[in-house]
């Protein structure tokens, strides 16, 4: 299916916070209580619509263990959006956010949109990190923030879509150079017909074969 844009996302955060479950909920609308652990990287894709435009999300779901950081770092390249996930029932996963953020800022392009996600919001009774703390952290570092539950699907759509909206707005504002693929955005074949101002680029030739 043709799309106007393709955005690359990367999901990062400590191991066991629910990165793969968020992805599974978003792409397959399912929840798996015991998910395989992720070694290296796994992938997901889904089409969404923003402002009447088809946007394909290509999502890289990374391994969370500290030891794999050197590998994960190589996957930031060309990401337009990042979902930085912590587990609201494990304070240490929140405490590690700073190092994740450093990594992300250092190895991605400066315009990458980062969505901070406090996952497992269904486990209210085991909560260790207050929502306000997440909000404060996000405000302080200029991130978007949301609490989600991959289990109940609460806010999962929104998390992925709001990130895309933010990226889309940045494109509209001209912040992203969409002809530079290092920014994690590719122009799809559909775009060439819908927006003539953007169509002259190489967009579409590589990503054009994409189907979803």
């Amino acid at each position, binding site marked *: 299916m043709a799309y106007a844009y393709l955005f690359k996302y990367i999901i990062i955060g400590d191991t066991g916070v629910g990165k793969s479950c968020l992805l*599974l909920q978003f792409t397959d609308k399912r929840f798996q209580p015991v998910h395989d652990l992720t070694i290296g990287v796994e992938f997901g894709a889904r089409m969404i619509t923003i402002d009447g435009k088809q946007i394909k999300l290509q999502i890289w779901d990374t391994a969370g263990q500290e030891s794999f950081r050197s590998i994960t770092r190589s996957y930031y390249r060309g990401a337009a959006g990042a979902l930085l996930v912590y587990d609201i029932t494990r304070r240490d996963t929140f405490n590690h956010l700073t190092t994740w953020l450093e990594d992300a800022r250092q190895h991605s392009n400066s315009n990458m949109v980062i969505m901070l996600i406090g996952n497992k919001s269904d486990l209210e009774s085991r909560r260790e990190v207050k929502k306000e703390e997440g909000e404060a952290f996000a405000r302080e570092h200029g991130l978007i923030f949301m609490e989600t539950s991959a289990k109940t699907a609460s806010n999962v759509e929104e998390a992925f879509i709001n990130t895309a909206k933010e990226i889309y707005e940045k494109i509209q504002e001209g912040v992203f150079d969409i002809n530079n693929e290092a920014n994690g955005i590719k122009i799809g074949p559909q775009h060439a017909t819908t927006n003539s101002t953007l169509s002259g680029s190489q967009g579409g030739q590589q990503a054009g074969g994409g189907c979803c």
Partner: protein
Amino acid sequence: MSAREGHHESCNIRVEPDGAGAQPRTQANVAGDLSGGATSNLTSQGLPSSPAPTKDPCRVSAKPDTIQGEEPSASGHLGDDLSSRPHPQVLRTRTVPNSVSYDSTILSPGDEDGETFAELGTQGHSDRRFMDVSLSSRNTFESSRRHCCICWLRLFACTSTHQNRLADRGNKLSVSSLKIAHSWSWLFCLVRSLFPKKQREPKGPSQNVPGWKLFGKVPARESAPKDSRTIQQVAGTSPTQPQQGRRKNLEFEPLSTTALILEDRPANLPAKSVEEAQRHRQEYDEMVAEAKKRELKEAQRKRKEMKERFKQEESIANAMVVWNNDILPNWENTRNTRRVRELWWQGLPPNVRGKVWSLAIGNELNITPELYEIFLSRAKERWRSFSETGSETEADDGASLADRESSLDLIKLDISRTFPPLFIFQKGGPYHDLLHSVLGAYTCYRPDVGYVQGMSFIAAVLILNLEEADAFIAFANLLNKPCQLAFFRVDHDLMLKYFAAFEVFFEENLPRLFNHFQSSNLTPDLYLIDWIFTLYSKSLPLDVACRVWDVFCRDGEEFLFRTGLGILRLYEDVLLQLDFIRSAQFLTRLPEDIGSDRLFACIAAAPMLNGNRKWSQVSSSKQKKT
């Protein structure tokens, strides 16, 4: 003892989700009858015109009156578990509740369970022909014992899958995972008795099979629908269907019979003309003839399959004798002979597998079982002190926490994420503590490496094939090999050099695919990391992975990369059609039905030669370059 030894490979299980399974299965069968769909399984009794019964009288539901009724004391936890489940999730079995039947003799896995099994076994024996699913089918190099055990694992995996699916649908579940855990004490006896060192020769094949995949990978994202399909397919294959059931069914589903075409029209409609009636008769005859042809073909296929399997099983049995009598007693002299290497390539018989792995991996590190005990007790001490102080210091930040994460919390977290569909490694599962011990001892033994994700899969495969201490010894020595050390230390630069060496052979062997991947920026690290870290145990079905391990033990790291080439070759045509994201998804979630024979044919067709340079030369030259 004799009873214990006497159990056999034809352990037949029939599991079917009630409610959810009954209706679709019927339809599937009917559709099959009419259109030759793959789901239909016509037998001599199941004439094409006859719809499959929705309710099969010989199917008993595993409710208190069956399982518990037959032998309440022994079914114990399992019975509780099943009976307490709300209607839709009830496991239904045919003839024998959760039927494990043993061909001629009887299994007694534990003293207290002996009686039950005797009873189940007897009944299973007498009704053997009713049982459709033979578990001894596909992976014939697996021993009969392993088969039975895996049947059980599979059974539990299915149970849980259905629970999950139902939970997804929002049904209220009364069965908590705890309850499943309860049944472990019971399953544990079974597993223990099914993983003995001694092995009886496999007997002939049994029954027609859809064949359950033993050691089958149940991929996380695909498992639920696949499982249910298997179950439905399995459930649909009933060789004997009592007339009663069919009749009864006719009333409810007149559409499901092809013979309806022969009926006269209802009185309020104009009657059929003679020609029309004749045409209908002809059409009907054609349908019947067509169905009969299909049936015959199917029977032929089955016969062939069975013969094939029988042959394979015989060759396993023979190989086992050779390994035990000729090769293992003269290991050092025989291991490198051509005959042994060839036999090795065919796959090791399961009951010598652990032994051969151990011998081939060796023990350069000179680890003794005593040393393992020492490190294990150290690990236990650390767990104790952690659990005493852990909750208070949890808010600590900094290095100490990272350290703790790597060794303690993380192991715990990951064990349950190791082969989740097998269940045996989950909390409360029979191998949970064992895996915990081996990994814990290793982090004490090699604090410089520590626990790295992926290790749990390697340890798990070893635990499935070796005794605890031997598994640890093999584990530590295996991880000490240069390639494994590079990966588990996450020496990224060195890993990239391995990938670069792989690409040399990739390009040599599969230039088209290589170029395709290059043009879509699909680099080998994206799929190789997962494959190499876990030695394929996460990405391939477990039985296939074990066969890869066999030759990996023989040939070393080279074979890991060669297997990678084999997979790419096997799916070359598919991959050439896919874009970046599709290919990446495909390679990080390989198809579940990957067969070891096809894969090994592709591996064999991928020589590790670049000009006249071998893997070791290419790889070391890459590593020299900085």
